[in-house]
């Protein structure tokens, strides 16, 4: 077996065992329980919620991010261990949504951390969420979900962008 095969096996395992830490910032969190419970049951695919970012593979951002929250999100993201994926959830994470002119809400999350997948909708339905998960799995299998690599490669730019909204970091 060569390295490529190993990679394949690893991706297969990553795909079938996605543990997520969900950062419940907005109203999107209410759509998660249906996804977990008997109607949609995401544990079918080996997915499950985890308590801490150390154990998790997916960071699920379920709603708008204030500046203050973004800082926490970045920290949590950096505490996760590679490979790690980010799913941003709902319109607010894409363009601010109804908070498009708010003085305190960041408008596009992928300016600050690499987002692998956006789920559109305000709110997205559980079907959409399931669909997104399946799509992420596919991306992982194909090796396209490489946000964590991009973050490493372009760390300087990401950090510069983050620091445009933060004044200080280590506090």
């Amino acid at each position, binding site marked *: 077996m060569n390295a490529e095969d190993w990679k394949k096996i690893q991706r297969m395992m990553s795909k079938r065992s996605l543990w997520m830490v969900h950062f419940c910032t907005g109203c999107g969190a209410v759509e998660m329980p249906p996804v977990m419970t008997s109607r949609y049951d995401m544990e079918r695919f080996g997915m499950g919620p985890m308590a801490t970012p150390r154990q998790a593979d997916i960071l699920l951002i379920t709603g708008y991010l204030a500046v203050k929250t973004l800082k926490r999100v970045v*920290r949590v993201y950096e505490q996760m261990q590679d490979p790690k994926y980010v799913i941003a959830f709902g319109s607010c994470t894409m363009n601010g949504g109804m908070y498009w002119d708010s003085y305190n809400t960041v408008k596009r999350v992928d300016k600050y951390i690499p987002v692998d997948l956006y789920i559109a909708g305000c709110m997205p339905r559980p079907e959409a969420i399931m669909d997104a998960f399946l799509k992420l799995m596919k991306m992982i299998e194909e090796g396209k979900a490489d946000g964590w690599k991009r973050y490493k490669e372009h760390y300087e730019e990401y950090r510069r962008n983050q620091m445009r909204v933060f004044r200080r970091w280590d506090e």
Partner: protein
Amino acid sequence: MDLQTLFGIFIVLPVLGAFLSYSLGKRASIVATAFSAVPLIFTYLRMGDWSQYTFTALGINMSFELNPLNWFFILMTSLTSFSALLFSISSVKERQNGFASLMLFAVAGANGVLLARDFLSLFVFWEIMSWSIFLLVMRASGESARIYMIFGAISAYFILFGIGIVYHYTGSFLYSAVGGVPAYAWKYLLPIFIVGFGVKMAMMPLHIWAPHAYSSEQSFVAYLSGGLSKLGAYGIFLTFYSFATVGVLAGFGTFRTVTIPGYALALVGAFTAFIGTMLAIFQDDLRKLLAYSSIAQLGYVLVGFGLGTPLAVGGALFHAFNHALFKAVLFLGSAAVIYRTGEYRISELGGIAYRMPFTFMAVLISIFALAGIPITSGFISKWMIYEAAISLKFVIVTPLMLIASVGAFLYSFRILYGVFLGQLHRRHEHIKELPPHMLAAMYILIVPMMVFAVAPGLIFDWINSILVYYGMNGLTYTTFSYQSSVGGANMLVFFVAFMAAFMVAMGLFMMKKARTVDQYDNYLGGEVRTDVELHAAHNFYKPLREVWEPLLKYSTERFYTRVARFFAGGFEEIKKVYTGNPQDYAAYAAMAFIVFFLIGWWLL
């Protein structure tokens, strides 16, 4: 070996050293260490000489004896005193000369107690040891010293009373003469000796001096708890297996092959172990925690002596040995922490292990021994006592001991987590590892624990010779394995298996590299380190405490305080005899004359 050498090395030399080191001032502990090293080296070289001597000193005829038992105990006390003094070179900062000389007096006293073959010298040296401990404790706290001394006096006077009884019946002070005490007198003599020696072992309910005394200078307490408290165990061993013959003990009646006094002792020991453990769990003061742990561990020794089968007695002796080592290391570890941080409350410490890794390793290994993890010898001695109790089918003693050993995990983790792991406080960020000689003081004691864990047969040889010397059957063992009537274990197999399993785990572990992050880089909901200390060591076992709260309100110490207050009230009444009124005094004189006269007339 002749008498002069023996007396000179074990008693005169420490006393001389005491005077010398007192006059030396700041370098006292170095000299004292050298003086305490001599008996240790001597013990190591000459262990195994058996002989008896008699001579006079201090106005009394003293008889000394060297037998396997006192060699065994001298090894413990010499080891612990040596490492305590070695440690104290740096750790004792204030009036080191007083400390060192009193330590050497205690060493002389302990050696004398152990070597004695008659009650007079036993008592004399017992008291010498007692007052030197008193003064040593007084260096830290007068009240603790007072409490210690009251119990020390109770212990000494019980022993003295017992000696008086022996003398009354036999007219001799020799141990060998105790056989002449008639059986009915043992009814008094046995409890008297048990209480007398039991105080030094901090047997419940005579233990309350221990948490106080053990809160004084920790390097001394390492010796007090490690070495000197073993003298109580020594005394109880002598009482049961040398003074009282089997016939005497059996004369009290037996309970399933165990004599009634033995069974009572075992019960007391089991309760001591249980209650001591439960109290240790809730201590926030590191020193008090270790003190209660000491009380509990000596409870096991009591159980072993009480059960009286060769396995139990051997286990108790071995446990006393182990306890001497690991508790000395633990107290030295706490001394190290106090030396570096000046703090003894567990909730105020934390993360010391990252700055003092070698100290942590020493403490960790001795905590393994304390908790009875099989990679140290602490397990084997506990195992022996358990097996003895199980094979006797005792259903009160055994569960108490077993659950106490589970409780030991709780308080040992409190030490590990509260002091050494967890968050390092900002004010402790700059502390350093101990200097080498202090580490050496701890690691000297670690080595035997590890060696005897793999090859317990080495120490069983010695324990066996003690048992045979006192007329018991030997143990069943080989160099690496040991057996009871109901089970057995092979430590070599265990170690090989452990190593193999460890290798497998290591192999799996080494497959991937890990990245080290700062210890404050923790998941706290995205928050980072703030000024708020997040070390979760304050009131660590709060839920358990809430459950136990109704029972914790009963305290032996409060009981004693109440008794003391009650008596003081009585004394006030008695003191009213001295009214301060001359007329009353004149009346007293008249009445005294009448009473004296009537008595005289009656006696006529």
